[in-house]
């Protein structure tokens, strides 16, 4: 029974990856057709994406390809969700107790936060980044980190597993989207600096300042969640190991990530650091997060050796 559920879950993961691939293709086609459209059509759109005041905030009109891509993204997300739930059912617990499962849930949340943010702002231009990232991450996680469903070791038998790890993966999702915007922002500001006319592709995106302020809002939510992750982790560590802080490698890296994003928030308010430098800090922070997951978990020895590998 357990094996059957786990197998269905894995089939779900592969199916979701197939549909994410389609979403990625359509989003890419969308970006390239934007580049091909005459510039006049797009100049209006570049201003509105970040401005709630304009009633027609969707004036950056979705192309046919973009609508298809977003529909694909939703279908992929639903399949992904089903795969994650099946994995949870197979284990009889929350599906984020080892590296594979964390990857599964974190990527699900990245897609969810992306789709949710579409209701808030038109961030569809991030679709290529998000679908590409999720596809890549799911592939790597499934190939390298897949483990069979095993019962929880005593050290993980705690409701803090539910809270601490879930909030950590949610924070990861917000940081991921923020860093996507930071990448776009850096490209955009480089293009702006080089003088010359904007490539049409970039002209169809919001300007660097708008991208930065959108990224900031996502990072800030991520930062609050990460602060909570850190504190919840300390509370759990106190229960499990008898001390709330012991500079275990994973604790160190959680702290480092927290400090980098604290630096990012301060950079946004420091003259000379707004803009590109702040964006780089955000990317470094997200890089540290990926490092913490993919490298620290696997290659560093510490108390958090629950990767199941």
């Amino acid at each position: 029974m357990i094996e059957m559920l786990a197998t269905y879950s894995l089939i779900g993961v592969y199916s979701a990856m197939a549909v994410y691939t389609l979403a990625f293709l359509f989003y890419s086609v969308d970006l390239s057709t934007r580049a091909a459209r005459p510039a006049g059509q797009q100049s209006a759109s570049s201003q509105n994406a970040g401005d709630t005041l304009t009633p027609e905030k969707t004036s950056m009109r979705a192309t046919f390809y973009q609508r298809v891509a977003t529909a694909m993204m939703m279908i992929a997300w639903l399949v992904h969700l089903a795969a994650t739930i099946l994995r949870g059912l197979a284990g009889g617990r929350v599906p984020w107790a080892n590296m594979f499962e964390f990857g599964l849930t974190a990527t699900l949340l990245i897609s969810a936060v992306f789709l949710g943010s579409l209701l808030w702002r038109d961030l569809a231009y991030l679709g290529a980044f998000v679908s590409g990232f999720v596809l890549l991450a799911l592939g790597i996680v499934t190939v390298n980190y897949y483990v069979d469903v095993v019962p929880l070791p005593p050290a993980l038998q705690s409701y803090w597993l539910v809270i601490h790890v879930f909030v950590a993966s949610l924070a990861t999702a917000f940081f991921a989207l923020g860093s996507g915007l930071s990448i776009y922002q850096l490209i955009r500001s480089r293009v702006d600096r080089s003088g010359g006319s904007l490539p049409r592709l970039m002209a169809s995106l919001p300007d660097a300042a708008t991208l930065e302020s959108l990224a900031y809002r996502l990072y800030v939510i991520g930062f609050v969640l990460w602060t909570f992750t850190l504190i919840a982790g300390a509370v759990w560590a106190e229960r499990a190991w008898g001390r709330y802080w012991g500079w275990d490698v994973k604790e160190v890296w959680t702290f480092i990530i927290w400090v980098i994003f604290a630096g990012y928030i301060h950079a946004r308010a420091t003259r000379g650091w707004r803009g590109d430098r702040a964006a780089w800090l955000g990317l470094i922070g997200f890089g540290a997060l990926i490092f913490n997951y993919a490298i620290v978990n696997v290659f560093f020895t510490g108390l958090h050796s629950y990767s199941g590998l």
Partner: protein
Amino acid sequence: MDPLRPSDHASQAPTQNPSLGASGWLRFIWRQLTSMKTALVLLLLLALAAIPGSLVPQRSSDPNGVVRYRQDDPELYELLDSLQLFDTYTSVWFSAIYLLLFISLVGCILPRTNHHLKALKSPPPATPKNLYRLESHRLESLGASEAQEDVIARAERVLQGVGYRTRRYGASVAGETGYLRETANLVFHFALVGILLSLAIVTGFKYSGQRILIEGTTFTNDLASYDSFTQGPWFSPRALTPFALTLDDFTPTYRFNETSGAAEPLDFAATITVTEEGGQGEEVLRVNQPLAVGGASVYLLGNGFAPQVTIRNPEGQVVFSQAVVFLPQDQNLTSLGVVKVPDGLAQQVGMMGFFYPSAVTLESGALASVYPEPDLPIVTFNVFTGDLGLDEGIPRNVYSLETDDMVQIAGGDSENSALVLGLGQELDLPDGLGTVAFEALPRYISVDIHRDPTQLPVAIFSALIVLGLMVSLFVVRRRVWVRVNDSGSGTALEVAALSRNDDPAQGKAVDDILQRILKAEENRLSS
């Protein structure tokens, strides 16, 4: 130190170039230290400085790793140790960074607190002359049916109704909201200082001790009963409240994974009788479920087997009978233990033993354990005679045997093979020294007992950190002005806003206020 430092804050005043003098220099250094840029650089340095501690084993969290490092590469060890890399988080350089950061932080939040307290007492600032210059600006013409004064009064009520503090300036009203943002931001930063201070002050009262507890034995909480003990400088043994713990039973639960062939632990449960002044009770101690006893917390750290070994001399008199703690070496609890018999036999005898809970014989003839449960428990002993080194009064590790001054008489290259004992068996020691028996198989647990008085203050400050952070990042500090302009063509209502921070909802808020004022106007007309 903070993104939301008001633009008129002292540190942003232009620096003066002329000669500074001693106090001038001090002030200059202070300004530099408490500037946002310095704080930012210190933050980034702190993140950078924390990295080495994750690359090199730390004495605080992985003392054995440090010992191994020393053995593997003594030269590199010396170099890294002189840089305090094995104590990264208490090192001079790491401490210097966070202390400077906190000084910078205090130097920033104290004047800000002062500034904020003043702001809380002062009214919103006067209406700017040219409101249209502000980002969100609305102009709406009104019918000339109402006196300027009435419209302004209504606008003031509307502003107050949505949480603005207001002040009338002639034909206009100024409103400000979101003071809570700065309050919460200061709370966040003060809470950070609070955590550091409680760590600095209260840590001195900490203590923690470890103890191995064999089934059926009792631990009483006094200093001498601990196997190891560390304490803060202000710890007093009186802080150890009297209580006793008896391990009645320890039951691990494993599941056999057919795919991997490994035993997966599902549960470790220790049943413990707790005796306190108030009385006695039975409690279950688990990995994620510490016991709170007499102001201290008891944690389950590890477990293993303690085979009961009895040694008799040739006359049959018992010279040694103990449950010997064997330390687990692998997942299947193959364990290592040492027996030392200094007195009662013809010679001092030391025995190095392996314990296999579920023993199988490998093709090589060696034994191995295939499961952590005692399905076929076997103890093997290599036996040594000679000087145990216990008579010089030098403390010796009970878990290791110095065999340099001893002769091996069983196992290894000696002429006798190692002693192999099943549960309940007894064998002769070589050379007619006596007999050794494996009589019973109790389990043991290792527990950590400690009291950390920093927990409460740190928990409170952490809660304030989360609270302060959420409020300070999501509340917006915003000023709104409403002015009524009388011109020849009629009355016009002007609404404009200025925010002190990222304010995506500014336009919406201005529209909302305008609509409310207009609606109040309509209501008046229709009533």
